[in-house]
């Protein structure tokens, strides 16, 4: 488990440095606050519409495609590692898997889930 000691040390270094910078900036910076300054930036105008609106469902479709292909990639990693041992058998089984998922991609493509205009 010695590699995890190094990893933990590195993670600790990284987070301490970032946290230190954040706190240093909050402590060191000037604090002159008035309501105009604290308004959300809108190129000098008052905010007319709330940023919290409903957005296009396109973003959701991209995220769904992402999740399902992420799962596919996750299957590909262990497969790639043992590919040499599996030989033709492994090639055929992953070929089937990829073809099925490619069909899903084609379906999404045809349905226009990937069109941004």
């Amino acid at each position, binding site marked *: 488990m010695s590699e995890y000691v190094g990893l933990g040390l590195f993670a600790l270094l990284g*987070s301490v440095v970032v946290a230190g*910078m954040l706190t240093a900036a909050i402590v060191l910076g000037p604090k002159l606050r008035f309501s105009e300054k604290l308004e959300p930036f809108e190129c000098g105008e008052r905010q007319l519409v709330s940023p919290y609106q409903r957005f296009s469902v396109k973003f959701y479709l991209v995220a769904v495609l*992402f999740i399902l292909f992420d799962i596919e990639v996750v299957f590909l990693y262990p497969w790639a590692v043992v590919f040499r041992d599996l030989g033709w058998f492994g090639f055929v089984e992953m070929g089937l898997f990829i073809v099925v998922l490619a069909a899903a991609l084609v379906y999404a493509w045809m349905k226009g889930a990937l069109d941004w205009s």
Partner: protein
Amino acid sequence: MDPVLVGKAVFIFLVTVGLFGPVMTWIERKQSALMQDRVGANRADILGLRVIGLFHPIADAIKMLTKEDTVPTGAHRVLHALCPFIAATPALISFAVIPYGGTYTAFGREFNLCVADLDYGVLYIFAIGSVATYGSILAGWAGNNNWGILGSLRASAQMISYEVALGVSVIGMFMICGSVRLTDIGLVQQETFRLFGFLEHFGWIAPGTGWVDAITLPMWGILLQPLAFFIFLGAIMAENKRPPFDLPEAESELVAGYFTEYSGMKFGLYLLGEWTEVVVIAGLVTALFLGGWAIPWVSDVALIGFLSGLVGSDWGNLLAMLVHVGVFLVKLVFMIFFQMILRWSLPRFRYDQVMNLGWKIMLPLSLANILLTGLAMLVVQEVTS
């Protein structure tokens, strides 16, 4: 705790974050000056001493630290402070698994130049990178700003789109190396293959022909998987959201995108994360595709043997270590420079172009690349066995 381990961790942390991170502001300006034929950043001075603008990073750091930290009204205060942290930390801690040298034995100790030689090395970087997505998704949402939230949505949709292409493109390399551990991948890339060896296997020429044995190429990823290399580089640059993929922060459209409402060091942390990620990308590309610490045609064993013959086994090993770290750093700097050149020479994509590139070009191509690589490997196995 093992002092060697601490030394390794601190060394590579200082190099990537302490040295390259801040100096990137300088490199970026100097590089843009070079591309645009100007002198560039050279104003900051200490007592009249300018040293080709090298004091600019220091000036930047001081400026960032002493700027006011504003949190807009209506923002979610905790998340607003947390987001820069989530965005910057993953980049800083992902260099831990990248090896910057091989394994050496000197003075009765074994030195393995990788902070954490994990079995799932590359996946660690991908996993950490996927957590970094939160830094950009939530930044705009926490800031209560129209530009911010639009930038957030664009950023996160872009990042997740390219994460798929990124993950699929390296599979070919994993298949060839039979491992996802970065040190294993580095070792495989030390070997060489005979470019015209197939002539011999097909029986077209007699075995032992001199010129067939003489023409060899190192088994670098860029030579074995050229398509994967370009897809990987493009996808990982899109992940980092730097130009030409800087849609989420397009100044002319979205002010500053998801970090519109961030000032001072919080803003600086986004930049620091971005720059550190440039270094991590360079390191990862070097380790995966450019042979890591390897010198082409010279294997670790040969180099260590040669140097041991000159100065004895212990010092020979240490010298070889230095040489390898040097070679790795040269490749790293080259990749950083390459990214900078792309940044300043390509125009920004349109959003639909970015999404099309990820889903309709890179993903199918990299899937095809996997099948082709598999087929090629199996055929080679059949022929040679």
